[in-house]
């Protein structure tokens, strides 16, 4: 840029003539790119630069991969029960064993247990037995499974080299099943079915709420009455009725899928009302009028022009709904319609933990599944947050 300076007689500062807005590259010496990009690219570009959000995204992806390869990743089958290891506490993985002479040697292993049965207290007592070393390996042969129901194989990512040795990295449950493996299998159901419900109530809530708030008048009146009825509707007998109506031949997963859909059919009302409230406030804004005058159809007005203003709220509501849906089974199971064994999901694992016995003596049954839910939810949240920030025009 050329700056020509002339000294003027009455100008105290120098008389300056510039021939364009002054801009400079972001970094010294870098070329100025003036190519404008589309809005989506813009958002994506901003998203990519958010480290936390990207990490969260990576975790979400990872969780789905875990779900996809559950059979391979889990050292044991989720239903295999070993009575002698009921309530076995978690073992730690360690790399070295100390030999009797005091030197240590590399040996990837977990420690075995010494088990005692206490007849009076009716329990097994586990003591880590330092002398029992259970060597652990990668890509070991373990129980036979079919990957995706197709490929029969015995390879597991990790497992005890001698397949009859006990390896309970996260402990065992009350039937002596491996919590780690169950957690891995649980990812599959929890990260898929539950989220369908979130998506459905999201769509219903947004669409009906938007319409109600946008049009007002009798449309609003009708939708509001529907909301009132739906939200005051007693769900418990509905579930009980449904549980009776659904054919027994359906598998528990199918049943739960249907239930999820119905949960979402009932769960949209609060979002709808919130969306409506915002629409009532926003519909008279000038930019909406402007878009209308531009010839936007009402659908476009609603979804393209007004709804983006609710991005943050909707993202927040969705991330809040995710944990609720993942653990919904636990409360539904009170009524006998949540997911039930033999299906494995995080909610089912938590169901198993809802008693004092677990809280008092086997906290790992409670902690790990909860942690799984928390991690999933936090990831969704941080990813959603990143998305929000990326879509926020004020955020650079």
């Amino acid at each position, binding site marked *: 840029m050329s700056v020509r300076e002339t000294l003027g007689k009455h100008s105290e500062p120098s008389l300056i003539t510039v021939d364009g807005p002054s801009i400079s590259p972001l970094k010294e010496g870098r070329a100025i790119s003036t190519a404008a990009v589309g809005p989506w690219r813009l958002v994506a570009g901003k998203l990519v630069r958010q480290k936390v959000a990207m990490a969260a995204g990576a975790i979400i992806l990872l969780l789905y991969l875990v779900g996809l390869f559950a059979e391979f990743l889990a050292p044991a089958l989720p239903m295999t029960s070993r009575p002698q290891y009921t309530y076995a506490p978690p073992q730690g993985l360690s790399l070295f064993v100390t030999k009797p002479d005091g030197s240590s040697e590399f040996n990837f292993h977990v420690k075995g247990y010494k088990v005692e049965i206490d007849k009076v207290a009716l329990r097994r007592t586990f003591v880590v037995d330092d002398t029992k070393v259970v060597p652990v390996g990668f890509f070991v042969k373990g129980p036979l499974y079919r990957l995706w129901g197709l490929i029969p194989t015995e390879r597991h990512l990790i497992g005890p080299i001698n397949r009859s040795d006990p390896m309970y990295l996260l402990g065992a449950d009350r039937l002596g099943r491996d919590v780690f493996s169950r957690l891995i299998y649980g990812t599959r159901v929890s990260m898929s079915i539950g989220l369908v419900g979130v998506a459905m109530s999201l769509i219903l809530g947004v669409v009906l709420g938007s319409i109600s708030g946008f049009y007002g008048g009798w449309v609003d009146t009708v939708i509001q009455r529907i909301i009132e009825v739906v939200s005051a509707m007693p769900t418990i007998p509905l579930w009980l009725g449904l549980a009776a109506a659904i054919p027994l031949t359906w598998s528990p997963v199918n049943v739960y899928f249907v239930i999820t859909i119905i949960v979402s059919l009932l769960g949209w009302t609060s979002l709808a009302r919130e969306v409506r409230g915002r629409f009532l406030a926003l519909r008279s804004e000038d930019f909406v009028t402007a878009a209308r005058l531009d*010839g936007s159809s009402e659908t476009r007005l609603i979804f393209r022009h007004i709804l983006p203003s609710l991005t943050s709220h909707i993202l927040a509501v969705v991330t809040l709904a995710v944990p609720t849906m993942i653990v919904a089974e636990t409360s539904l199971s009170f009524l006998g319609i949540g997911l039930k064994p033999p299906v494995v999901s995080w909610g089912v694992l938590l169901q198993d933990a809802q008693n004092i016995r677990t809280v008092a003596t086997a906290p790992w049954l409670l902690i790990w599944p909860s942690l799984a839910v928390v991690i999933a939810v936090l990831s969704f949240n941080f990813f959603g947050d990143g998305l929000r920030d990326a879509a926020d025009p*004020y955020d650079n």
Partner: protein
Amino acid sequence: MADLPEDVVLSVENLSIDFKLRTHVLHAVQNVSFQLKRGQTLCLVGESGSGKSVTARSLLQIVDRPGRIADGKILLRNGGEVTDIATLFPGSRPMRAIRGRRIGLIFQEPMSSLSPVHTIGSQIIEAIRVHSDVDKSTARARTIDLLRQVEIPNPDQMADRYTFEFSGGMRQRALIAMALAGNPDILIADEPTTALDVTTQAEILDLIKRLQVSRGMAMLLITHDMGIVAEVADEVAVMRFGRIVERGPVDAIYHAAEHPYTRELLASTVKLTHHVEGKVPAVALSAAPQPILSVRNLSKIYGWHGKANALRAVDDANFDLYPGENLGIVGESGSGKTTLGRLILRTVEPTGGSITYRGKDGGAIDVTTLTKRELRSFHREVRLIFQDPFASLNPRMTVKEVIGDPLVVNGLAKGRALEDRVAELMRMVGLDPIGMERYPHAFSGGQRQRIGIARALALDPRIIIADEATSALDVSIRSQILDLLLDIRQRLNLSFIFISHDISVVRYFCDRVAVMHRGRIVELGEAEQICTAPQEAYTKSLISAVPNPDPRNKRMLHRHRFVAPANA
């Protein structure tokens, strides 16, 4: 720290402000220096987008997010001491003590700068009570007084109304009242009268002048109206591309401008005071002498506050608009101009009357009875430029989407073609297409206004209702835009309803002018005639208050006030 000369209350030294954007750094303000003196007015004029508002905001440390004071000092006399505002933390107590109390700011965009959910009164009362320890009722009394001073009718009632019930000009005045509420020593007025009719504008400027004289208030006035500059400025600084290109006493600037840009500015001002030469009269333009739009007995009553309080925003309006004609609408702030425009488009439902529109095929349709679907095609042909550009731009859409939207929804362009068309439109209104990916809030007031114009032009309409479409533009760009519009009119046989307070613009641009007062069209006639030989008393007073862009001939002082007849 350097001492300031005795009469200087604020000194800006080598101020630079950068915006770090996605692709580049924008130096919005570069090396700007000026001083504000007690009781004096510095007028900051300059091209739209040259950094005036950013400079003004930086004085209060409220520059928008990516903006950052990169360099320079802002020295404020603080009792015996001198504070460098640039070093203060934005939310800190000393900074807060300066805001409102020491430096009052009138924002450029009056329409969006007020809270939509609080009454005007409560917002002003609060401004009073932050800095002085008075009880609510005293503050309210003072608020009402302030509102009266800024010429808001029925101030005690209006104080309890909400922003959206105020017309553009009324909001601007409310904002002025708010800025004055803290009795600041320095008033920064960022285009404070753009939405005001000349009469009101004169009153407001008078009010400010009085305060300056009585309290020694210093003022930084940012404006595009060279007339106003001539009337009130002691000193003038001219900005362009983030720099002050010329600075000096008002007389010197007007009569011995150095910088080519300053000269261009003045030339444009003069040009606008004359009617366009060689402009073909509208009626002759059109082969068919049938009006394209006829408005009959149109009225709108706002009656939320009960029958007794019902307000006739538009009262029995009648006029015709012929193809290719530019009809100007002038009138007092709050007289119903915006409402009239909106009624024609049916974004506000009329209380009574009819609007007949003659479509391309020559068939007449009654706009008041159109269905939603029919309205949509009507809207394609009749476009509106909003008075409040900020509010009319979707904050979550990039400019490209905003301007492109009408093209997209009407299926006129997409992909590459869309982008090219948007770029072309932006260039047409003098915007750099580089800003295409920015969101509306990242533009200056004038730039936003041009975005609005570009959007209206995108569809090749038949009528454009332009509500204060050029108020935020500097004269040179303004004249360019007006010429552009005239050119388009010529080519496309377009008609304009041009709502404006700027009589010179109206005179330059319009064929006929309607004068509105309290919802009624009080006079309608040839532009030249209205501007030079008005018939009605109200019009006369209006014309008399037009400021003269010559500091040696301050006309505003000789204006006469119109007092409405008692029965109105």
